């Protein structure tokens, strides 16, 4: 091992006896990350391996700890939105939605109907964009390069739309407290419609290209199995929980925006195509099926769009009354919760972000033992973490 890593120097080598033999073996410590192409950012995992088999995996996080919660205590309520964007930079719109919903709940602001519909359309498009990224990089982790290019191609089309409505490509600052910044024009609706028509064909292509590929299935089926009881105990949400077989989705259970008017299903892992319930393939297939549902939802909500204002009445200087709230929404990666404590000032007193990725990263040590290192890469990819949200 290289000795440059400070944390590793302090670790003592553990010695174990192989069962059934008198031979003494030592576990080899392999350091994966923070600079590693398959860790989706700056996650560092310290892996104790018994030859190729992972005996123990210890994730080390905090390499992207940007002190966002400390910042929020010093900025006014509108200024927090750009910082919330930078949490999960792959699904910035969903983060903004949760934060603005939390503040609106405290202020009692009425959001206009048109803004609600636009929010639904945009957050579902964001879900597609985020899942496309997860799909592309997951295929890249497992050795397929072309799905990455196809996924980015489609993702760029969504980003083009986002750029037209908000002005930025990745971090939008589009959902404001009380509504949205800009209205959507009919030409842009036509663009979405066009995109959706093409995208449905693309989804069929992805299914042929990756989901039904035997090599991909062998790499993911039966790998990283997470049982439902463990998923509950770890507090897993989103595709990770649904991949373990429970139809838990806040859009259905506790509808916000206009989700109660839409007709959609909750895709869950059912051991599709001969996989084991709760393995990487189930989590992956849940994401692919969710994209199909999102397409359905966007089509329905586009029909519900009526003319009207897009931003409600909010005072120029936002002062939230004293109190606290915990608001959660269904983000592409799971449930994002915001615990907002206000003392009646212009700034939040405390803003705690419950990030789904943080919870999901803590599952890694649980599912890692007994896997090959290459399968461990598949496990990391399947829970689809974004380090900006893990470390905040």
């Amino acid at each position, binding site marked *: 091992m290289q000795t440059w890593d400070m944390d590793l120097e302090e670790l003592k080598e553990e010695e174990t006896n192989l069962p059934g033999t008198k031979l003494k073996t030592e576990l080899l410590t392999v350091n994966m990350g923070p600079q590693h192409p398959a860790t989706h950012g700056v996650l560092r995992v310290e892996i104790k391996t018994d030859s190729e088999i992972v005996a123990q995996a210890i994730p080390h996080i905090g390499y992207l*700890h940007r002190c966002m919660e400390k910042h929020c205590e010093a900025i006014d309520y509108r200024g927090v939105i750009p910082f919330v964007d930078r949490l999960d930079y792959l699904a910035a719109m969903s983060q903004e939605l949760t934060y603005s919903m939390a503040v609106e709940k*405290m202020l009692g602001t009425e959001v206009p109907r048109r803004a609600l519909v636009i929010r639904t359309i945009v957050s579902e498009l964001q879900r597609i964009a985020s899942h496309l990224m997860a799909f592309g990089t997951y295929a890249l982790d497992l050795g397929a390069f072309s799905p990455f290019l196809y996924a980015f191609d489609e993702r760029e089309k969504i980003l083009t739309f986002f750029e037209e409505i908000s002005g930025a490509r990745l971090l939008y600052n589009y959902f404001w407290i009380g509504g949205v910044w800009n209205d959507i024009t009919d030409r842009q609706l036509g663009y979405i419609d066009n995109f959706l028509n093409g995208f449905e064909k693309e989804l069929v292509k992805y299914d042929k290209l990756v989901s039904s590929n035997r090599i991909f299935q062998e790499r993911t089926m039966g790998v990283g199995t997470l049982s439902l009881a463990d998923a509950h*105990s770890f507090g897993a949400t989103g595709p990770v929980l649904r991949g373990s077989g429970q139809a838990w989705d806040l859009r259905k*259970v506790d509808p916000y925006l206009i989700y109660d008017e839409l007709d959609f299903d909750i895709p869950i892992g059912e051991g599709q195509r001969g996989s084991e319930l709760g393995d990487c393939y189930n989590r992956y297939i849940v994401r692919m099926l969710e994209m199909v549902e999102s397409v359905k939802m966007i089509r329905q909500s586009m029909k519900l769009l009526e003319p009207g204002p897009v931003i409600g009445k909010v005072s120029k200087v936002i002062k939230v009354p*004293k109190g606290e709230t915990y608001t959660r929404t269904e983000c592409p990666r799971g449930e994002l919760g915001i615990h907002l404590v206000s003392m009646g000032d212009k700034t939040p007193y405390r803003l705690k972000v419950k990030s789904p990725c943080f919870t999901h990263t803590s599952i890694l040590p649980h599912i890692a033992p007994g896997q090959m290192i290459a399968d461990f890469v598949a496990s990391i990819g399947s829970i689809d973490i974004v380090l900006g949200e893990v470390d905040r």
Partner: protein
Amino acid sequence: MYSELITSINSAVTNANATLVTPGEGEIGDSSVLINPESVLEVMKFLKPLYNALQVISGVDYTEYIEVCYFLAHFDPAAPKDVMIKTRLKDRVAPKLDSICSVYLAANWQERECYDMFGVSFNNHPDHRRILCPDDWEGWPLRKDYKVQEVYRGMKVNPENKMNRDDQLFEDNKQKGNEADLIAWALSKGL
């Protein structure tokens, strides 16, 4: 709203002292259940069958005391419910709580984060280390009286030449001449 829950907690766990916290006059938001810090573990053991998931442990520093909030939820589409359990720690020097890792697996990392940010230490925690900040970091960042350290491993945290002062350039301009000159300079630009 939580009155039944509170009665059952109080009857099941002695010394839990569960009370309802509701927003007062002019206040707004969610209500929660306040319990005694010594009986956190027993209460969580009692609540585990009712709420199958721990969502987050969140600390809040109210300067007189540190509040630790546990958000529990029941992940069952047929009967969804959630609750916020709070406890208050008066001791700011070495606040201590019982770890609930044995009840909820999710508590492991959440408690480590609470320790990292607020310095609340958890008894019987299996892996009691800092999680986000480096191990040799000083201080508890999210406390209200936190002062950032100046140097970390030879790197200046807030180097002087990178910290902008908002009147820096104006001061530089002022040194060039008095205020009348400055106005004349500005007016010459048509401002």
